[in-house]
């Protein structure tokens, strides 16, 4: 096999299919997040007890003699084997990660249905030699990208779709490049089973004494069709590497999600963070493939006994550093710990633009995301959620109604108001001070404040406001601008409010 064949300039227009064969996909989906299991025998069980059976094993377990179909009881005779349950969610996450990584090379990716436990993915790299170089370079880059995601893969490239699929299955660590018009030569030694024939077809071909694809390819077409029909023709073309394939690309959805389950409830923060660390690596790698950073990360912790604990962190700027995200999650989970042990983690991230604010050619890039977000998170941990940020007035007549918004770095300097206005400073009393007020008729004439009695000399108003009548938060109040004098001749200019529903008087503000 020519492993180093590439495409030269004359072959730029030739199709090129790169097949990624992920053996024992169920096992790899579980172990890629668990680096401690890399060198240990691992088996994956499926089914309900007591009928659990092995559906997938890694290479170490296979060497021990464990095969698919073994029962749990039979596994007991293999000491030191790590047993995991099959996880559809982790497989979905792994599949998405693979597709995501493949999507960075080509939008045309097809996932083949396989009868064994492998996941087979074919990338149409036709016309990409100018971007990624010859076939070998493309294949190596694909291998590297998938390796970052901790998948063990077998790769093959060919101008024929089905040839690449057949050869990838038997490829070893090094990828196999099949130059154009040499497909038959590369396929001839492969067994008939490489074509996935039906049992009847396999029996028939075995009866005829055919063992390899080369023998099948040598049969005369007409006589084969007479005996096996069109299926025979198809198998012959596949064996010769000439069968055309209409590629049906996957519709790649760009979602950043990872899932991880624990064998037992986890209560230690360090253990949670350890798992989150590898999940964040995966998310960041996938985001980076598309030149994105992570704008927010949501973690849903599946709790022991049922229930979920969901937290979201949203840095002020999209972040590419795992340390920042981990620290923010750490601070957040410390402030809002899960109420029970954690059985699983589902992480979802939103991508964000990686551009940063820069105020001048010689000025440092501001703000430094790590310090900004960690500082904000630390402040929030002290003063409470929703109390850090920017106070923004709400659209309502209710005075003093505001909401805290997330702090964002201003992208432009605010314009100066050209008109000079005379302003009176008003010091708001937060909270307002309750007053004891004395009335004469319908006027209030004096009030008691901080041990002094003030006589009202002038009162302007009432300034009336009411609202939210359709809600339980209905409010109605009057305000008075008051000049009052104490017995000590101290003059007070203030705003006094009268809550018409609560029937209390308060000192709301002082004129400065």
């Amino acid at each position, binding site marked *: 096999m020519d492993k180093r064949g590439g495409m030269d300039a004359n072959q730029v227009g030739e199709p090129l299919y790169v097949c990624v064969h992920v053996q024992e996909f169920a096992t790899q989906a579980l172990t890629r997040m668990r680096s401690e299991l890399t060198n240990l025998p691992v088996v994956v069980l499926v089914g309900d007890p007591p009928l659990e059976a092995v559906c997938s094993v890694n290479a170490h377990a296979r060497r021990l003699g464990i095969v698919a179909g073994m029962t749990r009881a039979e596994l007991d005779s293999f000491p030191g084997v790590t047993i995991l349950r099959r996880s559809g969610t982790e497989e979905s996450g792994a599949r998405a990660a693979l597709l995501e990584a493949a999507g960075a090379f080509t939008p045309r990716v097809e996932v083949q249905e396989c009868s064994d436990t492998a996941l087979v993915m074919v990338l149409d790299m036709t016309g990409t030699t100018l971007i990624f170089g010859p076939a070998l370079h493309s294949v190596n880059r694909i291998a590297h990208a998938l390796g970052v995601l901790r998948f063990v893969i077998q790769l093959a490239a060919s101008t024929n779709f089905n040839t690449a699929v057949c050869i990838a299955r038997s490829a070893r660590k090094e990828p196999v490049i099949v130059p154009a018009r040499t497909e038959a030569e590369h396929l001839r030694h492969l067994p008939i089973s490489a074509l996935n024939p039906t049992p009847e077809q396999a029996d028939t071909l075995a009866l005829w004494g055919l063992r390899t694809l080369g023998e099948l390819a040598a049969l005369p077409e007409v006589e084969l069709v007479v005996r096996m029909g069109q299926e025979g023709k198809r198998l012959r073309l596949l064996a010769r590497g000439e069968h055309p394939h209409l590629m049906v690309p996957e519709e790649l959805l760009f979602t950043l999600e990872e899932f991880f389950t624990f064998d037992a409830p986890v209560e230690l923060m360090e253990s949670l963070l350890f798992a989150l660390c590898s999940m964040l690596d995966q998310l960041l790698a996938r985001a980076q493939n598309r030149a994105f950073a992570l704008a927010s990360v949501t973690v849903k912790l599946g709790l022991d006994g049922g229930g979920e604990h969901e937290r979201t962190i949203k840095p002020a700027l999209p972040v590419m550093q795992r340390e920042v995200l981990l620290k923010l999650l750490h601070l957040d989970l410390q402030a809002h710990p899960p109420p029970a042990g954690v059985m699983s983690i589902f992480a979802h991230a939103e991508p964000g633009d990686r551009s940063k604010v820069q105020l001048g050619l010689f000025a440092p890039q501001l703000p430094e995301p790590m310090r900004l977000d960690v500082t904000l998170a630390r402040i929030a941990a002290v003063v409470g959620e929703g109390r850090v940020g920017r106070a*923004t*007035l*709400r*659209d*309502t*007549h209710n005075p003093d109604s505001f909401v805290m918004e997330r702090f964002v770095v201003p992208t432009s300097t605010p314009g100066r108001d050209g008109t000079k206005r005379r302003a009176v400073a008003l010091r708001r009393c937060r909270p307002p001070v309750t007053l004891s007020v004395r009335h004469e008729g319908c006027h209030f004439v004096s009030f008691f404040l901080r041990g002094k009695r003030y006589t009202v000399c002038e009162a302007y*108003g*009432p*300034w*009336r*406001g*009411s*609202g939210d*009548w*359709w*809600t*339980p938060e209905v409010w109605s109040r*009057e305000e008075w601008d008051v000049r009052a004098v104490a017995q000590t001749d101290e003059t007070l200019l203030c705003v006094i409010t009268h809550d018409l529903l609560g029937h209390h008087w308060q000192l709301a503000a002082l004129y400065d």
Partner: protein
Amino acid sequence: MTDKAEYVELHSASAFSFLEGASQPEGLIRAAVDAQMPAIALLDRNGFYGSARFHSAAKANGVRAHIGAEIAVSDLGERLQPPAWLPHQHVPEPVRLPLLCTSRIGYQNLCQLVTRFKMREQRKCEGSALTTDLAEFSDGLVCLTGGDEGPLASALNNGREEAGRECVERLIEIFGRRNVYVELQRHGNRAEEVRNQAALRIAESLRLPILATNGVRYATQYEREVLDVFTSIRNHVSLDKAGRLLQTNSQRQVRSARAMRRLFGDLPEAIENTLLVSQRLEFELNDLGYEFPRFDTPTGELMESFLRKRVAEGIENRYVPKRDAALHERAKKQAERELALIERLGFAGYFLIVWDIVRFCKDNDILIQGRGSAANSVVCYALEITAIDPVGMDLLFERFLNESRSEWPDVDLDLPSGDKREQAIQYVYQRYGELGAAMTANVITYRGKSAAREVGKALGFDDETLGRLSGLIGHWEWRKKDETLGDNFRHAGFDLGHWRIISGSTPAAWSSVRAASIK
């Protein structure tokens, strides 16, 4: 000698300022009666839509109804809005100028002003006048400087006192010094009082009288909630999201003289001036001086003689073929009676106009037929307006026209739909001019179901609740005498303890449903 307790509200708006006023015209009159007000003025937005009902209700209750309109003027500035640094959803719109009709001339001018700017618009919209329009049609009108919707408030907010003074001077230039009043309103708002103080200084410097009004948008304080719901509907938002679009407080009701005197205790002349202005406003809606349009006879003779001749011809054409001399004679006598009444009431022109339209249609192969009580008239039969012989059928003419009923004749003509109908319409426009003829259209109004749905949306009900609510409106029957709205809600499965259901089931909320269903 005026009673010192009296005050006249000279700036109110009814629900015919669509979705900007919460009370029916009758409600405003009722509130005026309760406040012992001798007169009250209605100024609806850009028209006189509520004035007919306002006038009728006022007459029935012994209150004088002053008529006017709030006119949008695009070159006097933009209406006052909250400052830019406050979050709000106000959209820019032109200022509104309150204009009151002192005489029939003023009313005619105001009608023409509204017609002028509405017909100027190229697309369906409210429209707005220009100061040149105001100058052309200013005779017979009294101009107020307005409240927060007015040009003075806008000028004071944008350009301070100097801009306000210029604005008032411009109004003086248009309407004349005698006809401009500086309007003051007090709704318990600081910014408004600052503008009032500036307005007072402007009035003093220009030697203009001041006038206190309450800028009424609802009859009672309770209906402020209705106005808020209308505001939500108008802006296509729920009450939760309407924010500063809603009313600040409940101070725009019809106030009594005592309350207004207390409010303007420092400015008694502002209250007294309302009585003086009211005395100036002599125009009333039953004094329109309407005359039926004249018909230009082709021979140049008088309409009455031309009509007689056409009727005489028609009687011959209709009855001679019947070969019944007695019937013919009766028809002639009946025609004579009808013609005498028509001439006495001055309706000859009307019949000739209708005859002319029918003649055009018949000459142009357009199917046309008169129907209704006009079939009782032998004059209509002779003019070929109707096809039934009223004399032969012994129909009663007095059903159609009766001197004692003081009603005008009404002949309905049926035309086919499509191009032929349009041809007839175009003929009328060509004959009488674009401003001499008009289509009267039905305005789509809210009925119970749709009103309930809109109110429910404003209250923030979800789609399912909205569906249940509107679905039930048409089916409720009052089964027992003391049955309440709450009973109906409970039977319909609503939780009466829910705050929004409480809000939604108040009389104010349901009066909003009724008010929205303006017929």
